[in-house]
């Protein structure tokens, strides 16, 4: 599932690329007057072009990196996982527009905010998971701006005194940080603040605007990192990691792909050999003038937009220009950020402490309780899964944790546990390798079936017990690998018989062939291709043995031929008995 997912992701981006003017292929291919080029050749050339373009881009990036230092800070808005709104007793559960709205949400005259304590729990989980100092006293402020999706004319947020400060997030190589950042980089988090979401507005030009206030005042957390990121890849990795942390701690359910998470980045560059820049942000000084890119909606957009903005800024500076402090936007598939508004058009939000809302006082008892019930962090899980107990590869451990909101990992644990019971009689070495084997079956075999049938994850499709039994049979060599895959597919398709019964009734248990039967089978396939036999003998082309093994598997009785044994017999017959 994961691998095909990734593959699908790549395909999607590739299919977008031809629309991209900078990457457009030589015009010849698309002009009808030109001679037709065979499709295969065209595809080859396109691939070659892409490769060389990528290589060139990589070299350019490296050259500019040597000369220019990029600095990036990230701001993430994430919808908290709660049905309550931040300041009204309305719940946000229905999809019918304007059905979950209290009078306060619509800013009716005479209404007042009523803080909903339930919204605090997911916010605090996120703050703890991001290693923040929770503030015993925090306050709410009004951020003013006029827009029809903001009924009161201001958003209630925590500007002067946020509820959490001074956290950090550690990014590791496996999180996809840039190679130049080494094995690990720590990004400090300036603060987390609680704030209200806005309404959804839909424009129907020229004269109609529809507003749905269901989302108004749904609680968000805003996570603000320090400007400590110096590569686009690490910025994307940081956003991905922050999303995975706030999701795994139960603070947030809807990720970026569904709009539950929105990202702004601020970007500045400075020449490495020049004097320190004039600007300072969040207490970090010596930086160049920064710009802000608003509303990035995917990890890839984060990376691409930063690259584009960095290159734009370098271009401006190299041609003697000056960077304006401005707000810019990014369209997916584009190569350039575009200016939304300059400093002169900057909104003065006139932050004012909300005179109706008392300070938020958070007690140590609540924090202690949340601390003790917080789920294990993704990093600790990875350490556990790649450790001696499970021995998974990083590449398997990560998707196992991330897939299906942790349900896949839970399933993995169920299978491992069941298998441990079944294998209680086995030696420690065998049992130590079980994790890796289960990981492979849960992710790749079962995952492959899910992808092929386009079904969503459900732990009941193949009960954990059944998979454990199947792996147990395989591990004890009572069935072959292909048989195990076949049975898995049968169960996947709804066969509810116990594994042992399926093996019995379908006659799938391995009845090992006798040596005589192997020899006879080997001789029959050797007769099919004497020339190849000769090549193997004279040129020692052992690779060609595989073809004969395959033939034996195919012609032999289904589920009885074991590949290693077949190869052993073939070697003996072709090259003579091993000495």
């Amino acid at each position, binding site marked *: 599932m994961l691998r095909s997912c990734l593959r699908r992701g790549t395909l999607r981006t590739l299919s977008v690329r031809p629309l991209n003017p900078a990457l457009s292929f030589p015009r010849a291919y698309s002009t009808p007057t030109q001679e037709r080029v065979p499709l295969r050749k065209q595809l080859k050339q396109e691939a070659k072009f892409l490769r060389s373009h990528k290589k060139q881009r990589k070299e350019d990036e490296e050259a500019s990196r040597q000369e220019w230092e990029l600095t990036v800070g990230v701001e993430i808005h994430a919808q908290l996982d709660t049905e309550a709104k931040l300041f009204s007793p309305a719940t946000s559960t229905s999809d019918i527009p304007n059905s979950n709205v209290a*009078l306060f949400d619509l800013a009716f005259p005479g209404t007042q905010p009523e803080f909903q304590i339930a919204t605090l729990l997911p916010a605090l989980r996120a703050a703890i998971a991001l290693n923040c100092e929770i503030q015993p006293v925090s306050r709410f402020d009004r951020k003013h701006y006029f827009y029809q999706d903001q009924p009161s004319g201001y958003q209630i947020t925590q500007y002067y005194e946020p509820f959490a400060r001074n956290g950090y997030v550690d990014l590791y190589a496996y999180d996809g940080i840039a190679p130049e950042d080494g094995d690990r980089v720590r990004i400090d988090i300036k603060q987390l603040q609680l704030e209200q979401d806005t309404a959804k507005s839909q424009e129907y030009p020229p004269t109609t605007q529809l507003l749905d206030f269901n989302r108004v005042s749904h609680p968000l957390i805003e996570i603000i990192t320090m400007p400590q990121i110096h590569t686009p890849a690490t910025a994307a990795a940081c956003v991905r990691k922050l999303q995975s942390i706030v999701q795994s701690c139960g603070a947030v359910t809807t990720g970026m792909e569904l709009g539950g998470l929105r990202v702004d980045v601020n970007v500045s560059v400075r020449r490495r050999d020049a004097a320190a820049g004039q600007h300072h942000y969040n207490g970090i000084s010596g930086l160049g003038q920064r710009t802000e890119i608003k509303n990035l909606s995917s990890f890839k957009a984060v990376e691409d937009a930063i690259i584009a903005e960095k290159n734009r800024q370098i271009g401006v500076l190299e041609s003697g220009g000056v960077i304006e402090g401005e707000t810019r936007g990014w369209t997916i598939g584009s190569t350039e950020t575009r200016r939304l508004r300059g400093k002169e058009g900057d909104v003065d939000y006139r932050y004012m402490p909300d005179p109706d809302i008392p300070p938020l006082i958070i007690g140590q008892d609540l924090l202690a309780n949340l601390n003790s019930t917080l789920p294990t962090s993704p990093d600790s899980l990875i350490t556990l899964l790649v450790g001696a107990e499970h021995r998974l590869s990083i590449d398997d451990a990560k998707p196992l944790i991330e897939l299906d909101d942790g349900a896949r990992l839970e399933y993995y644990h169920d299978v491992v546990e069941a298998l441990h019971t079944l294998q209680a009689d086995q030696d420690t070495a065998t049992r130590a390798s079980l994790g890796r084997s289960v990981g492979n079956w849960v992710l790749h075999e079962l995952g492959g079936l899910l992808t092929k049938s386009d079904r969503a994850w459900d732990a009941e499709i193949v009960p954990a017990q059944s998979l454990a039994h199947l792996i147990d049979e395989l591990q004890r060599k009572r069935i072959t690998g292909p048989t195990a895959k076949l049975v898995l597919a049968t169960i996947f398709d709804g066969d509810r018989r116990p594994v042992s019964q399926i093996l019995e009734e379908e006659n799938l248990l391995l009845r090992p062939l006798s040596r005589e039967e192997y020899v006879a089978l080997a001789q029959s396939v050797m007769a099919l291709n004497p020339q190849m036999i000769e090549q193997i003998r004279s040129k020692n082309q052992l690779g060609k043995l595989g073809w004969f093994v395959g033939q034996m598997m195919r012609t032999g009785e289904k589920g009885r031929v074991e590949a290693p044994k077949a190869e052993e017999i073939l070697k003996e017959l072709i090259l003579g008995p091993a000495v």
Partner: protein
Amino acid sequence: MSLLREAERCVANQYSHNFNAFITPLARAGQWLDRVREADERQEQGTPKSAVDGRLISVKDNICTRDLPTTCASGILEKYTSPFNATVVDRLEAAGAVVAGKTNLDEFGMGSNSINSRFGPVKNPRRDASGEFLSAGGSSGGSAASVAADQCYASLGTDTGGSVRLPAAYTGTVGFKPSYGLISRWGVVAYANSLDTVGILGKSTANVRDIFDILNEHDHRDPTSLSVFSRERIQHSLHNPQLTSRLKSTPLRIGVPVEYNVSEMTSSVRRAWAHSLAHLKKQGHTIHSISLPDTKHALSTYYVLGPAEASSNLAKYDGVRYGTRAEGPDGDGRPDGYLYANTRGEGFGQEVKRRITLGTFSLSANAIDNYFIQAQRVRRLVQKDFDAVFTAKHPLAAHGTGITKDNDVDVIICPTAPSSPPRLSDLMDKSKPKSPLEGYVTDVYTVPASLAGLPAISVPVTVSGEQEAELAGIQVIGQYGDDHLVMKVGEMLEGKHLD
């Protein structure tokens, strides 16, 4: 007189005396008649629901009522009816009272003469010697006029910087602003939340007290409503023997702030103040000169904080979800244009626009430190000034010193306004443009108690003038939570003719 006859006479007065006190008067016939008749029956049986059972109480038109419109005297809410009742309205109705209509005011409470109204100015039922119409004071001028003209039994107003006390002083009624946080603001349209207080206007302090006792309860829907626990703390601190003995076994110590002797004060007001003090002294109470040094900054502080909060609170009026929209498409037709520039431009009156602009400026990034933040600091100093002179310590202060100094006082007595009500014709005369600051000065005595959240009452006293008797409002200010003492002292002066 039966409750019904009294109520009918009030309603008749609403229609016969046109002081423009009401934006929405009570309909002559309606379901309210039955409710008053039922109250009469309860009265006869000796089982009234409360002291106001069957009484007509008018409600300022910035307090939400489900059955009558709530316009705030603004064009932008000209036809608006709230979908819910303010808590204070629910409480009064539960006590058997009838809402006697919605009274006129300065738009959203911004003004001191009740002339900034979409529905025209309120006229004071009192006229001057030459028969000219006078200002009823503001912003609860309609409420005060409706009480003075016997168009209701009592009235609910709101007091942000003196909006109940000043109209009471101008119309010769009693106007009480309780301690901030005692009466629920749920359903009270915000002007400046940190200062807004529901106030009560009546013919006598006794009437006002009855209503206050009904409304003085915690409301979970108002986040600034004092909790039950805080109310207990106040009661506990008032149970100190030194405080319970006041007016019973020990005479009062009355404070007179030297800073309140401002040059704008007219001679009749000065006389009323002096005679009031003399009257109390005659009864055995002692008068003490006190200093409230930060008073001189209080007015400017108020006119920074009030507009700042107003600019924020009034941002919601855009005609999108409720309220009046400007004719035709709004937003200059540009795709990113604001959809309600014209709506707000047409909906708000001059004074509201002035204060929104002022508040927008004082909150802006370049001005906030010098104006809004500075004003908050001064506000704290004003509160400390008061804390320093009262015998009773602030019951909710974190670190009370508990030490009573020799010159501490129980209440402060001062005028409500520096002068008598101006003529409406002078205020409305466009040929004599006046600086808005002139109007702001009338709030000089009322604003300090608002900034500190203290209880204050204005009661009418009469003194002999050069030609005729002159009426003035005298104000009693007490420590936070000392509301009942303030009313008792007010009662000692209320309606007195002093010479």
